């Protein structure tokens, strides 16, 4: 065996003065870091990914995890990561896999945008005392309303009355502009999905199934679930399409634009095999392209066939990864009968992606929203289609900024997982998630209580919703419609002229 040259990333220490040898850590750590040897706990630091499960569960607070201070010769170009990746690939000859979001030190544009607030002349609004409306409808909107005038007899008098002629297409009604992103059953545990489903139902919003189909246990929540049709078409049949509130076609994903997905056979349990409609234990591979979509016309056909299959009752979304020509694609999507375009930025999370994709492919969501919104407006189409943004939304301010840049609503993925306890350790692809989130092992899955999980996720969504209301009030706005695309309320700090131009915002002080 070729030895690994990479020293452990973390150092795990158990304080023998505090430890009472309960062995809880040896059970809690699904990666086998801890082992009892005689009257000591021995820790194998090289297995640790800093998931903190043992730290959180140790009754004696005896465990510390630090970044391993082994010195590497410092070098501005050959940083530790670059060298560690080479050692790993020299050892295995494989593509490097990684989980969660882009780990490169690229600028986070959300953090270089500040919000405006009211002072004196335009009073701020107190959301505790005045109505603050966050209700959002996702779906097709008419270009204009048409009325017809009909004669009606009211109290013996003939009166011409204006009646609405336009029929509004089915839209999803969101009580808050925050939805939970598509993460597949398979990648995530059933208890993680149940937590999300209960939370979105409580909050009046929606979650995505991801490409893993819809497990039966989620049927009671189906009117708050958006089903996904990805290139693998796992679990897609009429019942599945009819069950959900809307359908999302996944073309691409922010964390790995241009490639498909892979769920290893060992994760395909009996329950997952039934949901995905594939044999137990077989690898579930979604190809990079949909093999029936090689042009925008093909996409339009799929949109229409899904609409036909669901009697034109379900909105159909199309999700693409944020790439440089996203605006042009979005225009194509807008003219394809689709109801919403989902743009997933390159800081979006993933269960597993080749590291080279996760860290190097795609563009920031902030730029993509701004460019897509602008382009749809130039084409006069913005009003007819909704924009959903995802990929790296971390807090209420990010949601607010995304909407002011032009989104209708956002999807949160990693944030919702963090609410469940995820530590962003980035090892979801191993299937050993110690928090019971990204795993199918029954003993790990049961660590996540769906009731508790739902409470935590619902709390998070509600907390952000309150914060968005406060931010709106401070901006003197009492309805989310007036925030959408309202870039006047944003200012850039530390951005160059070109960046400001793409974002369509002014510099602070202007």
């Amino acid at each position, binding site marked *: 065996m070729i030895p690994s040259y990479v020293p452990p990333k973390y150092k795990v220490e158990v304080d023998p003065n505090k430890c009472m040898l309960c062995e809880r850590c040896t059970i809690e750590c699904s990666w086998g870091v801890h082992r009892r040897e005689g009257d000591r706990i021995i820790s194998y630091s090289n297995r640790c990914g800093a998931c903190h499960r043992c730290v959180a569960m140790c009754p004696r607070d005896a465990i510390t995890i630090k970044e391993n201070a082994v010195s590497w010769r410092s070098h501005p170009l050959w940083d530790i990561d670059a060298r560690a990746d080479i050692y790993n690939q020299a050892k295995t000859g494989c593509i490097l896999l990684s989980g969660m979001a882009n780990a490169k030190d690229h600028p986070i544009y959300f953090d270089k945008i500040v919000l405006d607030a009211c002072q004196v002349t335009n009073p701020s609004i107190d959301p505790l005392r005045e109505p603050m409306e966050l209700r959002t409808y996702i779906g097709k909107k008419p270009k204009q309303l048409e009325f017809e005038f009909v004669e009606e007899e009211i109290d013996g008098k003939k009166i*011409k009355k204006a009646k609405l002629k336009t029929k509004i297409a089915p839209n999803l009604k969101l009580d808050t502009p925050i939805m939970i992103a598509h993460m597949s059953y398979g990648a995530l545990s059933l208890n993680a999905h149940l937590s999300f489903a209960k939370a979105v139902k409580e909050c009046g919003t929606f979650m995505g199934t991801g490409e893993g189909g819809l497990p039966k246990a989620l049927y009671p929540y189906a009117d708050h679930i958006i089903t996904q049709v990805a290139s693998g078409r796992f679990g897609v049949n009429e019942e599945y399409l009819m069950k959900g509130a809307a359908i999302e076609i996944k073309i691409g994903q922010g964390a790995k634009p241009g490639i498909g997905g892979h769920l290893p056979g060992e994760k395909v349990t009996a329950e997952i095999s039934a949901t995905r409609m594939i044999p137990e234990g077989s690898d579930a591979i979604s190809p990079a392209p949909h093999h029936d979509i090689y042009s925008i016309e093909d996409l339009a056909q799929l949109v229409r066939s899904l609409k036909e299959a669901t009697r034109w009752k379900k909105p159909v979304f199309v999700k693409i990864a944020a790439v440089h020509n996203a605006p042009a694609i979005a225009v194509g999507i807008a003219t394809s009968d689709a109801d919403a375009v989902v743009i997933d930025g390159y800081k979006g999370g993933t269960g597993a992606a080749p590291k080279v994709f996760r860290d190097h492919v795609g563009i920031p969501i902030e730029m993509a929203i701004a460019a897509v919104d602008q382009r749809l*407006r130039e084409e*006069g189409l913005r009003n007819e289609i909704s924009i959903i943004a995802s990929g790296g939304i971390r807090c209420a301010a990010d949601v607010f900024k995304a909407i002011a840049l032009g989104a209708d609503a956002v999807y949160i993925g990693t944030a919702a997982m963090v609410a469940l306890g995820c530590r962003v350790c980035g090892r979801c692809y191993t299937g050993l998630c110690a928090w019971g989130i990204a795993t199918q092992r029954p003993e790990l899955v049961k660590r996540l209580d769906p009731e508790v999980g739902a409470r935590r996720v619902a709390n998070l969504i509600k907390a952000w919703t309150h914060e968005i209301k406060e931010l709106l009030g401070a901006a003197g*706005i009492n309805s989310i*419609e007036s925030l*959408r695309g309202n870039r006047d309320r944003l200012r850039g700090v530390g951005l160059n002229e070109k960046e400001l131009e793409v974002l369509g915002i002014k510099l602070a002080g202007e």
Partner: protein
Amino acid sequence: MCGIIGFMSRKKRMIKGDKIALALDSLKERGNGKGSGYVGYGIYPTKYKDCYAFHILIDNTPKFEKIKVEVENVLEQYGTIVKDEEIPTEDGIIEKTQIPWRYFYEVDEKYADREEDVVVDIVMEINDKVDGAFVISSGKDLGVFKAVGWPNEVAEFYRIDKYEGYMWLAHARYPTNTKAWWGGAHPFNLLNWSVVHNGEITSYGTNKRFVEMFGYKCRLLTDTEVVAYILDLLMRKHKIPVEYALSALAPRFWDEIDKMPEEERELHTAIRLAYGGAMLNGPFAIAVGTPHGLIFMNGDIEKDTTMFGLTDRIKLRPLIAAEKDDMIFISSEESAIRRICPDLDRVWMPDAGMPVIARPWK
């Protein structure tokens, strides 16, 4: 701050401009001398009644003649200038940084089917492309007069007392967002829509980008401009009945919509879905004048005068309405109304977000 006052005779009696000037003077306190303006409807009743009356502000610089030629080049592309002249003004009252010019204008026959769209295009083209010139009114038989100055100064400067109209709106400005300049004073006009506004539109960024999608260009550096364009889009182009169009500007709250009977609920939901970008947010009270072209609830195309007032949904700015015989008044303050009509039949404060719509007597 800012003060607005408007009145209309439902019998279409002609009223001299000194009345509106006097009323606006009472609202002096609400401005700071940085902008005042008037619009009179019915002021060109004689031979130019059917011409578009373009009031254009041209920079008073050595480039004046050059700019004027550029303006005329735009106009001549689409029709005929029947007459043009400098709008008569009184010297020595305010600093004349702009020269107000008026053109009585006929749109070419070949554009007959989309005459008003052509006028809108002309306004956008001049405002956008001609450096140093801004169209401040473009309707028929009406005119906007505005400048940087106190209400009485601007009235005197333009000799407002020499004009007679059946409807007048006026505004005293206290600019808080953008610099004071002639074009930024109110009223803002497009075709026959004239808007005076007290407040700040916190949704301006959204509204501006919404109307831009339909070809309007916001170039006058003040949030109120966008209101005139939204009204033109909703009522003239999309033919939305006035009550519903105003409901797009200040929609019913979802709580109220949810409680409505089904048909009404669908209608108000549709308005919010289709025209969310037209919703005005922030503190506002607006008064709008228009002499024709509305489709009202009864389905008939009205060719008569209308004036309406509207506040934001939580009424952060004042608006008072009053009546006396054939006269209807809208103002920021009752005192301004009483200054010209001390004895009123009825005075009321419209509910938040509820429009007051006044139409002529048939």
